[in-house]
């Protein structure tokens, strides 16, 4: 009997070690391991991490927190997939560091009435040498708007002739869309109304890269779900996609401007844990860390650490209708909202919770928004728009509160309970507690309940008006305020604030009637001050993204997405 038991244990051990030995590694072999470990030790000794420099190939390893979800340009709606497509595909125009530059379209003409856009395509090729044609762009536009694709990011292109009808299923013949190929190199887009944001939306979009109909049809629903089911037409081509682990790009020799692309190989590794990612950067295992926790800010020098705007505005959104009738009465009082706003110490919160890395917001439109000329920004042109102090202003806050209570005919004790809703992500709970606490200490109000849910549940509650105060981080187009500002108009479909204002809606609608940027920005400035004075948004922060880049590299940036098209070794 003893033998049997020992035998069983032995058998188990053998089976386990056999299984353990079978290996599920995502790539690499023991030899590669050895060199990898060696590399680490070299870094420890302070020598250069660029061992490849000697052999002549240029390689870059980028650490990110999240993998792409799909490579299908029509269906993606997340930044990470967008980032991968941005580097491996190219659309009509490109958005490089906030500027619109030519892409596959060498040039374009706009008709007198601003309704017809004619794009002239250059001679360019896919990774397999096939030409890129206007017809492939037509197919991509049609596929984005076709309700049978399951696309979500079409709403910026509804100004195209028949786009709305196709999205709604009223027109099923996709060829009726106002996007036509005149010949292989000429693409004509016709709009039904003028759209001042059309070009910048087109340049910023990751959803309209050319598509080869035959290839897409052949892959069916699997298009873009693996590296094999995807064709590159951009500066880099996709070499491999080990899902959840890494994406490898190599330089695309077929790219028309291949000379401008310096890196031979870029590896985008997914390291979810922020501290692990930071350790790997410190150890030289990755050259770039695309998201650094604010708490580690002080570990890096200014030639390594960069703080880039994230293109979003964080506000407390007030439900002026209230979650209950009682809270609605209070929250529709503008002075009450002002009291809440003036009691918040934005600078203090920023220092305490974000290590001072955010930009404090006293207004709504993103500071990075370009102005009416190439040299100026919107903020430089309209510096005086403001609706909140940077640090708490207890005197004014209480002044507003007393005014509000007088208008409401209530005392502080009579105020109803109010619900502060936020998502269960990141540090939102800490912010909520700090803000509610400042209302308690500065205003003497103790009537706020913090409620947290997972992302979908939180959004459902917000859309159903099941909140009084909602922590909102929102942003869309970094180049133009229209998308963001139109959310709060009477027809804005996520405007569940109970604020239905004619003056504001008119101002925003007027910005769509002219192509003149100066005139439009003036309207936006007026609308911004108006909503700050009367509306449901309390500005808090403009978030930023902290990245660290090994000083041996240049050309790496974080704009709307991570950008490393023109990455190179530093001289």
């Amino acid at each position, binding site marked *: 009997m003893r033998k049997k038991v020992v035998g069983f244990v032995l058998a188990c051990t053998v089976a386990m070690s056999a299984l353990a030995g079978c290996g599920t590694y995502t790539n690499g072999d023991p030899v590669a391991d050895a060199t*990898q470990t060696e590399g680490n030790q070299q870094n420890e000794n302070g020598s250069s991490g660029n061992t490849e420099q000697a052999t002549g190939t240029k390689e870059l390893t980028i650490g990110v927190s999240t993998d792409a979800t799909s490579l299908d340009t029509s269906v993606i709606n997340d930044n990470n997939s967008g980032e991968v497509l941005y580097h491996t595909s190219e659309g009509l125009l490109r958005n490089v560091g906030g500027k619109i530059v030519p892409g596959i379209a060498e040039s374009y003409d706009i008709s007198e009435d601003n309704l017809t856009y004619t794009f002239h395509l250059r001679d360019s090729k896919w990774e397999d040498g096939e030409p890129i044609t206007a017809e492939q762009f037509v197919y991509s536009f049609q596929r984005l708007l076709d309700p049978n694709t399951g696309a979500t990011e079409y709403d910026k292109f509804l100004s195209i002739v028949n786009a709305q009808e196709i*999205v709604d299923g009223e027109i099923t013949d996709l060829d009726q869309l106002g996007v036509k190929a005149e010949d292989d190199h000429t693409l004509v887009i016709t709009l039904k109304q003028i759209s001042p944001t059309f070009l910048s939306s087109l340049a910023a979009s990751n959803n309209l890269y050319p598509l080869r109909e035959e290839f897409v049809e052949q892959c069916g629903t699997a298009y873009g*779900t693996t590296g094999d089911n995807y064709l590159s037409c951009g500066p880099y081509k996709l070499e491999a996609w080990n899902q959840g682990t890494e994406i490898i790009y190599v330089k695309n020799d077929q790219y028309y401007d291949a000379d401008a692309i310096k890196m031979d190989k870029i590896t985008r590794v997914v390291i979810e844990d922020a501290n692990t990612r930071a350790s790997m950067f410190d150890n030289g295992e990755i050259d770039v860390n695309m998201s650094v926790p604010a708490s580690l800010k002080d570990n890096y020098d200014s030639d390594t650490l960069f703080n880039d705007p994230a293109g979003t505005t964080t506000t407390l959104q007030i439900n002026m209708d209230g979650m209950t009738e009682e809270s609605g009465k209070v929250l529709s009082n503008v002075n009450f909202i002002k009291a809440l706003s003036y009691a918040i110490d934005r600078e203090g919160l920023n220092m305490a919770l974000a290590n001072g890395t955010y930009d404090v917001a006293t207004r709504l439109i993103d500071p990075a928004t370009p102005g009416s000329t190439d040299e100026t920004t919107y903020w430089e042109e309209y510096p005086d728009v403001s609706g909140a102090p940077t640090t708490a202003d207890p005197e004014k806050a209480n002044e507003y509160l007393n005014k509000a209570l007088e208008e409401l005919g209530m005392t502080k004790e009579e105020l109803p309970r109010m619900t502060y809703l936020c998502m269960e992500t990141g540090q939102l709970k800490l912010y909520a507690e700090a803000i509610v606490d400042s209302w308690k200490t500065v205003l003497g109000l103790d009537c706020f309940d913090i409620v947290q849910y997972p992302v979908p549940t939180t959004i459902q509650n917000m859309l159903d008006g099941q909140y009084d105060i909602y922590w909102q981080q929102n942003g869309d187009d970094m180049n133009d305020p229209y998308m963001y500002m139109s959310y709060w108009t009477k027809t804005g479909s996520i405007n569940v604030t109970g604020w239905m204002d004619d003056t504001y809606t008119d101002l925003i609608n007027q910005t769509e009637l002219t192509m003149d940027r100066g005139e439009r920005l003036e309207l936006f400035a007026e609308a911004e001050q108006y909503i700050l004075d009367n509306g449901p948004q309390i500005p808090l922060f403009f978030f930023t993204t902290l990245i660290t880049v090994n000083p041996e590299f240049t050309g790496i940036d974080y704009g709307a997405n991570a950008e490393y098209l023109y990455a190179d070794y530093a001289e």
Partner: protein
Amino acid sequence: MKRYIAKRLVISVITIWALATFSFFLLKTLPGNPFQTEQLLKPEIQEKMMSYYGLDKPYFEQYLTYMGNLLHGDMGYSFKYTNRSVWDIIMQTFPISADLGLRSLAIGYPVGLLLGTIAARRRGKKADYLCVLISVLGVSVPNFVIGSLLQWVFGVKTGLLPIAQWKGFSYSILPTITLSIATIASLTRTMRASMLEVENQDYMKTAKAKGLGEKEIVWRHQLRNAMIPIVTGLGPAVATTLMGSFIVEQLFSIPGIGKHFTESVQALDYTMVLGLTIFFGVFLVAANFIVDILYGIIDPRIRITD
């Protein structure tokens, strides 16, 4: 035996069916939909997506469609990872988690059993206190602390081992140790308690009275009987360990199945949640089944009849 197996199979199928049904309707009671991500979609676009994926149909109709597809082995497509099939994602990530899990069990079980046995044999002596200390520390220190500490010592400070990723044997050492610590800790405690309990049994006294040697008593009587509670826990323990650990996989950036369990629920990725639940359910039922058969081998008193 055959009848027993057949009976167990029928019960297993019913269990899985109940699990799938229950999970399906429970999921539908959660507010929100899979298209509500941090990148807020407009409500009219959300509605279009709901009808595109047939999520606007009555729940029962959706349920019938889902179960029908499931019978054909089709778990559907993930919402979060657009157009990727749930089965493909499971098959891509599960082997990695299972690999890591097996390694940690291969270390955790022998070490845990050994420490537990030593502690019980040396009860009240230094060795006992040391083993108990190890197990208390292992249970109470969370594995992300242990993992980070290992990363810091072996990765950052000495550069002996890579900090993260899953690319070869050297990459697997730290996560394996991290994951096995909890197993070692809990097994040491269980084994020690179990050994001590057996020691007071009548058959132990009989064995001693028979004049059997110390070794003989421990090997033949004490260990075998003490193993029974361990084997009971073996099925669920193997199943949960192979299903990956959210924290360890995230810390060491291992593309395993662990994160999907948490992520899919948070994102309300219906098909993914159901697929994982059913997959885990089948695995757990199978593991328990095997354990029940193993009982008979270890303990002659539990022989399977009908």
